[in-house]
């Protein structure tokens, strides 16, 4: 399958990736064979076969509604590129 099944520009737009035209071309070229390899699966006749989404036949791993400690705010904001005393700070978004 050709690499045309992957639109790198569209994927970058969705992911807010800002790539140069050279980078776009490179990824288009490099990712093409990977997508083509995965697409080999569709050559098989899979009618009537449920997709395997989970590795193990386990279900219902649920949590009781009990409060657990949260992080303290200083720790939370420490890694942020920019923060006020109480919030993560970012360029103003116009609604």
């Amino acid at each position, binding site marked *: 399958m050709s690499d045309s099944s992957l639109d790198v520009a*569209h994927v970058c*737009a*969705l*992911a*807010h990736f800002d790539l140069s035209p050279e980078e776009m071309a490179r990824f288009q070229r490099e990712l093409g064979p990977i997508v083509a390899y995965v697409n080999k699966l569709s050559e098989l006749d899979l009618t009537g076969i449920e997709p395997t*989404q*989970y590795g193990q036949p*386990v*279900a*219902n*791993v*649920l*949590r*009781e*509604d*009990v*409060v*657990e*400690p*949260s*992080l*303290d*705010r200083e720790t*939370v*904001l420490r890694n942020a590129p*920019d923060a*006020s005393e*109480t*919030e*993560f*700070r*970012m*360029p*103003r*978004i116009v*609604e």
Partner: protein
Amino acid sequence: MKYLVNIGLETHVQLKTRTKMFCGCLLSTESEPNTNVCPVCLGLPGALPRANKEAVKFTVMSGLMLGCEIARHAEFARKNYFYPDMSKNYQISQSERPLCLGGSVEIHEGGVPSGAPKRVRINHIHLEEDAAKINHYARHSGVDYNRCGTPLMEIVGEPDLASPDEAMEYLQKLREILVYAGVSDCNLEDGNMRSDVNVSLRPEGSAKLGTKVEIKNMNTFKGIHAALEFEIARQTALLEAGGAVVQETRRWDGDLGETFSMRTKENAHDYRYFPEPDLLPVDLSEEQVEQWRKALPEAPEAKRARFQETLGLPAYDAGVLAAQKPLADFFEATLAAGAPAKLAANWIMGDLLRLLGAASLDVADLRTVTPASLAALLKLVDAKTVNGPTAKALLEEIFKKGGDPEAIVKERGLAQVADSGAIEALARQAIEANPKPAAEFRGGKAASLQFLVGQVMKLSKGKANPKLAAEALRKLLS
């Protein structure tokens, strides 16, 4: 040409759990920003979500109340999008396998009580997580992740609503049911209940739905009504002028009272749903669903019918008392404490609601008057131990300070004087003191009796039974 309207609502409801959907962080609107956050709801690499059982239960309970089919197998999915309100760059939601399927909300045609019953279909209900709150300042925006990860139930309605009034009734009924079920406060100011609204027009006679326009994230019923009215007028004018409606998302500006096209890539969303690999499926057993079904409160419609049929209340009374669960609970507790139904209904709907209204108090927060003390008071009224005005004054006093009506009556000797000997003595006194009205009554002036009854009441300090007083006076003056 006449156009028919189709409105569909997708309503997001915050569930009333103690903790978030996928982590144990506390849910509270009162906390300082970014204090109820952890690696899971901050989307830190390697953090693993664990689904809240109570949120699953609340969603299933809502489904049962709305007549949905409960899925025996449900799965979570990732909805991918990039925006600062979602730290992981995806929202955990449900796509192919939601928890509840089908169901409906019963309203009246035209959204008016006199309209014929109408069933508004629900497509499905799924469970997901809410996003963070973004605050906007002069030079920057700030993100508070406290709300991020709040369990959110999305009720996806079919476009069965034919007018803004029907949409209003649908939302009110939905809210009534969910508050009843105890799964959400559905507090609109706090954004507990937000709807994405879609509306389309089609020519009369055509079965095919027209092109729909969506208005997102509306949190007041009034706003939804106004936005729908505007949008229907806009689309009608457009179609009548020979134009076509463009499928798009529009924004409602409440101040201007108009919708505006959102010229963003909003319409080009591609969420790339795929199964959430970090969460296992939810398989609900028959026993589990039955156990939750048994814990369901009676639906408001059923309660209304029962109040009418088994308690003999008029439709209006049943409607008022059943509309809010706290009021219905108070009423039923008052009956359980021994008050007669009609008397309890009258006093709760009349004096008690008036006192609550004047004090801007909700019945759920009422601590002074209890079902037990109201029942005790109404038993005194029913047994004619106290007369109407005394009972009214007593209720006002208990409303202010609390207390046991029986004890107050005994302590202050407020019991109605129903002893005919004592009343006759007072009547004689009244006649002696007022010879003129007495003579007038003898002479045929019936109105003078009322004056004399008033005098007996005065002499008894309000405690005489007015009916017995009139009888005694009649006897003495005949």
